[in-house]
C-alpha cells in the first residue's frame, strides 16, 4: 500500500508544480503593467520603474517564478495591487464564506444521493426507481444558477423565510450566517445530488449482481444488511470518485452561485480582481483552488485504499 500511496503523492506534487508553472506563465502573458496600475496614470516613468524594481518585476523570469512559488508554499501570496494589503488576508476573509458553502453543499448532496441510490437500486425497475431516476435525470439538466433564481423567488421573495442574498458575516452569529448560506448550498447541492444518486444506483446494481452478494443472502443475512453492509461498501469506489470530482466542481461552482446571492466569497473576489486587473489576487485564488482540487483527488486516492483492501496489496 505504501508504494501505491507514495506514487499518488508524487503525482499530486508533480501536478501541483506543473499547474503553478501554467498559472505563472498565463499571468506573464497578460497585458497590463501592475506597477503602472498601482501608481495611476499620472505617475512618471521613473516612478513606475522604481516600483517595478521594488516589486521585483524586473528580475529575470526563473528567479521571479521561484520567488513566487516559494511564497505560495509559506502562504505568502504577495500584496494586492488594488487593496494594498497582503493577498492572504483577503483570501482568508473570503474563504470563510466559500469553504463552508462548498462543504454544506457537499454534505447535502451526499445525504440526499446515497439513500436515493440505495432506494432505487433495491427497487430496480419498479415505480419508485423509475420516479427517483426520472427526478435525477431532470436534476442533472437543471443549471444551478437558474435553480438558485427559482429558490430565491420561492423562499426569499414569496415565503420570506431566508434572505435573498448577502452575507451578514460569521460575527453576526452562527445562525444568521448559516441562514444566508442555506439557499446557495441547496442550489449547488441538488444538481450534484442527482448525478451522485445515479452513480450510486448503477454502482450498487453492478455489485448486487456479484456472486458474493448471493452468498451473503444464501447464508441467511437479511436483505437490508447485505445491501447496506456488503453492497454499499463495494459500491463506494465509483461513488468516491464522483464525490471527489464534485467537490472540485462545487468549489468552482461557488464562483457563479456567489454572484447570484451576492456572497462575499472567493468567487466574487476573483471577478472583482479580474475587472481591476489585480493579477496577483487572480493567480493566488486560481492556485488555491487548483491546489484544493489536487488535494481532494489525493484524498480520494487514499480513501480508495481504505475502502478497497485489494488496492493495498498493489503498487
Amino acid at each position, binding site marked *: 500500500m505504501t508504494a501505491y500511496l507514495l506514487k499518488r503523492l508524487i*503525482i499530486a506534487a508533480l501536478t501541483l508544480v506543473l499547474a503553478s508553472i501554467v498559472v505563472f506563465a498565463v499571468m506573464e502573458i497578460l497585458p497590463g503593467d501592475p506597477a503602472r496600475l498601482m501608481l495611476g496614470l499620472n505617475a512618471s516613468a521613473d516612478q513606475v520603474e522604481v516600483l517595478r524594481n521594488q516589486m521585483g518585476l524586473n528580475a529575470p523570469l526563473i528567479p521571479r517564478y521561484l520567488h513566487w512559488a516559494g511564497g505560495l508554499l509559506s502562504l505568502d501570496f504577495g500584496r494586492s495591487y488594488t487593496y494594498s494589503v497582503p493577498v492572504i488576508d483577503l483570501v482568508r476573509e473570503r474563504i470563510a464564506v466559500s469553504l463552508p458553502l462548498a462543504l454544506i453543499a457537499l454534505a447535502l448532496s451526499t445525504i440526499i444521493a446515497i439513500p436515493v441510490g440505495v432506494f432505487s437500486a433495491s427497487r430496480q425497475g419498479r415505480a419508485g426507481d423509475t420516479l427517483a431516476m426520472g427526478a435525477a435525470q*431532470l436534476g442533472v439538466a437543471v443549471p444551478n444558477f437558474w435553480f438558485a433564481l427559482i429558490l430565491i423567488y420561492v423562499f426569499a421573495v414569496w415565503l420570506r423565510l431566508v434572505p435573498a442574498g448577502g452575507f451578514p458575516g460569521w460575527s453576526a452569529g452562527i445562525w444568521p450566517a448559516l441562514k444566508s448560506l442555506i439557499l446557495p448550498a441547496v442550489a449547488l447541492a441538488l444538481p450534484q445530488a442527482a448525478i451522485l444518486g445515479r452513480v450510486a444506483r448503477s454502482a450498487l446494481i453492478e455489485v448486487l449482481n456479484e456472486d458474493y452478494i448471493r452468498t451473503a443472502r444464501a447464508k441467511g443475512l437479511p436483505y437490508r444488511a447485505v445491501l447496506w453492509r456488503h453492497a454499499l461498501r463495494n459500491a463506494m469506489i465509483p461513488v468516491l470518485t464522483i464525490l471527489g470530482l464534485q467537490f472540485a466542481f462545487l468549489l468552482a*461552482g461557488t464562483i*457563479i452561485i456567489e454572484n*447570484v446571492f451576492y456572497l462575499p466569497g472567493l468567487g466574487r473576489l476573483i471577478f472583482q480582481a479580474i475587472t481591476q486587473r489585480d493579477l496577483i489576487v487572480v493567480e493566488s485564488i486560481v492556485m488555491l483552488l487548483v491546489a484544493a482540487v489536487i488535494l481532494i483527488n489525493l484524498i480520494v486516492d487514499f480513501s480508495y485504499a481504505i475502502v478497497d483492501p485489494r488496492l493495498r496489496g498493489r503498487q
Partner: protein
Amino acid sequence: MTMRVDLPEETIAGVLAKAFGNRSFLIGLIITSAVVAVALLSFLWTPYDVTRLVIADRTQAPSPAHWFGTDHFGRDILSMIMVGARNSIAVALVAVGIGMGIGVPLGAFAAARGGMADEALMRVNDLVFAFPALLSAVMITAIFGPGAVNAIIAIGIFNIPVFARVARAGALAIWPREFILAARAAGKGMTRISIEHILPNIATLLLVQGTIQFALGILAEAGLSYVGLGAQPPMPSWGRMLFDAQTRMVTAPWMAIFPGMAIVITVLGLNLLGDGIADILDPKSRRRR
C-alpha cells in the same frame, strides 16, 4: 462503468428496431431534433426581430401576442430563446469538436504506444483536470476578454482530456484482440491500425461521451454567459437572458422561467439521447433493465 466495445453481429435493421423500442432514445431524439429545428428555423423566421427594442412593450407578461412575454427592452422572449438556441448549440458543438479532434488522437496514440508516452499523456490529463472548467474559463477570459469564441475555447480545452481518457480506455480494450493481431501480422502500422480498426470500434463510446459533453457544454456556456464571460449582447444567449432576469425576478418572473426551461429541456433531451444510445449499444446495461 464498464466499457463494452464489442458489437455483437447485428444488422442495421436490428439496431434500428432496438433504437425505436428504447424510450430514452426516442424521447431524447425527439427533444434534440426539436431544439435543433428551432435553432435552424430562427435563421429564417422568428415571431419578432430580436435586435429591435420596443420600449413601449417592455416587461410584458406572457400574452397571445408574446407567448413568453417580453424583456426589459421590449424584446420578445420566445424569439430570443430561438436565436439563443443557435448560440448554445454552436458553442457546445464546436467545444465537443475541439475535445474530440485533439483528445481522441491523443488517447489513441497513448494506448497504441504505451510506456512513457502513455504516462506523460495521463499526467498532462491530470494537470488539465486540476483546473475546474469554470476556473480555466475565467482565466482565459482574463487574458483574451469575454466573448463566445473564448467560451468555446475554454469549454473545448476541458473536453480534451475527457475524450483522451475515453479513447485511451476504449482503445486499450481493443488492442489485445485477435483481429488486431491479424492486422499487425499483415504488416499494418500503428497509425493505420488505430484509424482502420480501433477507431470504428470505439466510435460508439465516443458518440455517447459526445452527447454527454454536448449537454455539459450547453450548461457551461449558459453559466459563462450568465456571469458575463460568454456571448456578448446584443447576441441573445440563454445565460445572458437569465442574468438580465435576475434583478427583475419579482416584477417579471417569466424573463427567468422560459430561458431556464429552454436550457433544462435541451440538456435533458441530450442526456436521454446519450443514455439511450449507450443502452442500445451496450448489451450489459440492457440486461440490467
